[in-house]
């Protein structure tokens, strides 16, 4: 289970384009490193990340080993109604994670 932090504005006007940022704690192991015994540390990166806003997919990222450890992503979306933005992701080891944040739409 990875830890993640989502940042969205505290509130938004209806129709406003808001900035969404997420940082996930994950080594994004590239598979090119060796452990102390000389064995390759297997590649294990978050390969897919999906963001759903009130259940509808608004953003999807296919990531590789070229993304830094503890991946950070920023994108925008139009605030339409109060609700949740939910991120879910899966890594090469099949480990899944998810995190949500509240979107508050005023006016």
């Amino acid at each position: 289970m990875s830890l993640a932090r989502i940042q969205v504005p505290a509130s938004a006007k209806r129709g406003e384009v808001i900035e969404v940022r997420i940082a996930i704690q994950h080594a994004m192991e590239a598979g090119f490193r060796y452990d102390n015994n000389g064995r390759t540390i297997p590649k294990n990166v978050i390969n897919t990340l999906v963001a759903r806003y009130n259940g509808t997919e608004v953003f999807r990222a296919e990531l590789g080993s070229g993304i830094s450890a503890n991946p950070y992503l920023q994108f925008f979306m139009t605030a339409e109604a109060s609700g949740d933005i939910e991120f879910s992701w899966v890594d090469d080891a099949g480990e899944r994670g998810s995190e949500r944040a509240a979107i508050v739409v005023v006016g």
Partner: protein
Amino acid sequence: MPTRRQFVHAAGTLAAASLLPLDVAAQSDPFAPLIADFTGGAPIKQGRVTLDIPELADNGNAVPLRVSVENDMSSASHVQRITILSEKNPRPVIGTFHLTPRNGRALISTRIRLNGAQRLMAIAQLSDGTYWSASADVIVTSSACWDES
């Protein structure tokens, strides 16, 4: 009836003609096969895409990168996909991002690993089927440690 000499000459010319363009393309543009994978052979135009990356990056393990596309993200014509390609990373496709009209603004940013100084390319696919691209060169003083170190 062609003589043997004529036949050998013709065969040699044919072979050279068919091999040479492929060879040259492979050597001069490491992006070519990656672009073909992404676009399926559709033509790419320069422009509309802005690729922001520091000219000089101290730490190749985390280089900030931002891609934006001149597009109003209306449902008629919006950015569907953005991909980021690296010239020298062992896995050259850094990431592909899928957008929808709900995004409202065609901009993504992240932090990437770079295996040395190189050129990066960002390609955006629009919903009207056109592809746009931008490139940027970046110098990395300390590469991401791909090799044992």
